[in-house]
């Protein structure tokens, strides 16, 4: 940078020391006052304006409630802005189940904190795995090496922290005041993924996270970071995966051990069924690295388990018929149709609120608006249909028979055309918008 004029101000410690000596002989009061000044000035000027976290900062151990089971209810409105935590604490009244980490024994908490720090480092020095050798390729293939993670941590602090929070809890300073709530990464769950459901892996591919970063989540407060360099987005994705693995480890341990009559043995039973463990090894120190390897392996597997869209079967002239078929699939309750309208009531305009896995409320998208949170490319819509949105209540669409490819594209064609009444075939338009045509909506930004 060409600014040499004031660089000196920043680099040389202010003429503090000699003056300080003079003052040291003076009254206590003046000395204190002086140190207050010089500490603030020196503290702020002479050290570099560091972009990352302070070195002595540690990830906090989870203290907020864990949602074990969300209520089945569909309440008629959202909690007030800022009221998410309170609303989670009220879930039991609505038939949900929550676990309070405050009941976690102090000794176990200390041990867990130590183990987590051992495996995952600190915000300034993040890592995955106590040593790289242990996880080897698994970590490098996922780009979870310390260099990338440190870059990601710096960028995360600047761009993500105020919503997603230090530990990825979605409770940063802005986090509680936006809805949908910013993703809480600490359960290892992501909404918009493109991995095949075959192996029941609810893991995102790195590409899914990068897509979300690049395009943002339209209709939520997640902005697009598309103008950021690819390299920075890669680093951010790595750091998000790091936070999510760390959080999931914590979540798993807390959730299992907080249940009544549960023991560490349950952890091994539930999460490492294939592992041979002796009674003596049934402790957290043994479990954590083993389970870490399990999670990282799953992430690696997910990278290869891509859900590939079938080839688009139609010509331009066939579009109208395809839309008609898609409309029927969407709105009919017949056995060979999908009946999407049973959740997307009135094509999403009157969708009910539903609890997701995190205990926050969302509702099936209003598809007449042309706002698609998980991306507006046809391939994104394909993934939403075929993969569902596992942590919320959107199921994966199962289509049988040879016609599957065609049916999927029929549905996508209809969904894509829905926001444009002029483009819909007449009977479809009448069905979606009624005979009067489209009603202008406030919430429609486009």
């Amino acid at each position, binding site marked *: 940078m060409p600014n040499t004029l004031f660089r000196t101000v920043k680099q040389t410690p202010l003429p503090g020391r000699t003056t300080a000596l003079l003052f040291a002989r003076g009254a206590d009061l003046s000395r204190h006052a002086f140190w207050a000044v010089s500490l603030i000035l020196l503290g702020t000027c002479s050290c570099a304006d560091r972009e990352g976290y302070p070195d002595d900062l540690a990830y906090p151990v989870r203290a907020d409630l864990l949602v074990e089971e969300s209520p089945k209810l569909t309440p008629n409105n959202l909690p007030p802005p800022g009221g998410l935590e309170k609303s989670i604490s009220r879930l039991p009244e609505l038939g949900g189940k929550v676990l309070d980490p405050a009941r976690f024994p102090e000794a176990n908490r200390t041990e867990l904190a130590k183990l987590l720090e051992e495996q995952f480092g600190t915000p300034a020095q993040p890592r995955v795995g106590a040593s790289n050798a242990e996880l080897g390729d698994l970590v490098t293939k996922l780009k979870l090496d310390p260099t990338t993670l440190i870059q990601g941590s710096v960028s995360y602090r600047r761009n993500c922290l105020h919503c997603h929070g230090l530990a990825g809890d979605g409770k940063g300073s802005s986090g509680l005041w*936006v809805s949908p709530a910013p993703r809480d990464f600490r359960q290892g769950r992501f909404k918009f993924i493109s991995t095949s459901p075959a192996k029941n892996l609810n893991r995102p591919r790195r590409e899914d996270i990068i*897509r979300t970063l690049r395009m*943002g989540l339209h209709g939520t*407060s997640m902005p697009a970071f598309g*103008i950021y360099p690819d390299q920075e987005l890669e680093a951010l994705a790595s750091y998000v995966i790091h936070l999510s693995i760390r959080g999931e480890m914590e979540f798993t341990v807390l959730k299992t051990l907080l249940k009544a009559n549960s023991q560490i043995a349950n952890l091994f039973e539930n999460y490492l069924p294939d592992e041979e463990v002796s009674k003596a090894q049934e402790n957290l120190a043994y479990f954590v690295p083993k389970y870490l390897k399990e999670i990282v392996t799953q992430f690696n597997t997910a990278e290869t388990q891509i859900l590939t869209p079938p080839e688009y079967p139609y010509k331009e002239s066939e579009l109208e018929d395809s839309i008609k078929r898609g409309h029927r699939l969407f709105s009919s309750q017949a056995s060979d149709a999908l009946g999407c309208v049973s959740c997307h009531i009135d094509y999403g305009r009157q969708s009910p609120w539903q609890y997701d896995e995190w205990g926050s409320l969302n509702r099936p998208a209003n598809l007449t608006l042309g706002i698609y949170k998980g991306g507006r490319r046809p*391939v994104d819509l394909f993934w939403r249909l075929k993969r569902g949105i596992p942590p919320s209540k959107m199921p994966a669409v199962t289509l049988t028979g040879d016609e599957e490819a065609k049916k999927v594209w029929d549905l996508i064609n209809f969904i894509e055309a829905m926001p444009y009444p002029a483009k819909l075939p007449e009977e479809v338009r009448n069905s979606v918008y009624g005979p009067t045509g489209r009603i*202008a909506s406030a919430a429609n930004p*486009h």
Partner: protein
Amino acid sequence: MHRFWSLLFAAVNLACLGMLLVAYARPELGWWLPEAASTQAPKIDALFYLISALCALFFVITQGILVAAIWKFPSTKTGEAKPIHGNTGLEIGWTLAPLAGLLVITGASLPVWKSAKYQGLQATFPIANSDPAPAADQVILVTARQWDWHLRYATSPLQPEGVREWAEDGTPADLIVADELHVWKGAQVTLLLRTTDVIHSFFIPVLRLKQDTLPGKTIPLRFEATVSNVRFDPAQRRLVTGENDQTWEIACAELCGGNHYRMRGKLFVHPDRKSYEAWLKHAQSQSRSRTLSASSSSSSILKDASKP
């Protein structure tokens, strides 16, 4: 002692003036107006310099008199001050002289303001008895929200009377991208500004362009870029640096909540319509992708290898 006070006032004022002069004389510091890249930018800059010249004159005269008076008339000077209560001639003089300067500024401002803001208005809500605005080459709907910009590009030419309907309804062929404004050099661009939530302000420093978005309203703006900074290379399917390799940014200039500061966007000015349309085609094919494809960034620019 009175000399000290006089010098203090002189020093402070000279330091202020000096700082401005340094910023002006050394553009490499990056302390002055950013590049001027639209037709209205040089006009606004010229006005800025006109006002600066008149202000500098007034500044030097008034501060000079003050400093000299402090130097010359301390209480230690012998004798009483002359009990002068006023002078009508002087009063009239120093009323008329600044008035002349102010009228010059007003006169110079009016046409620039008219060309900067009336044109956009004209394109959508024609003003009676005035020349029609030239047809737009590009129409882009900018929707602000907390906290980014969504830009919807019309991909086929629009008739002026069809603009409002297009803004309301859109077409499936429209291209929607976040935070990236692509135009080409010389294009008459109509922006339609909207917001879904609070007031934002669409600010592009290099174009000297700023307009608040107002909830419930669609506000038209018109501009023409005169310098390009990228071109689209169809072979590499990427943007490469154009006439210069500046990064031009879009900012939000009206407080819109905690993350107001991070509504950053980028402006890409293509050298010609061909380059823009190649980009548009590429971006459309990306956004219409039905096959397995990585989301790609259209904005990370490769340095043009052919340039030094």
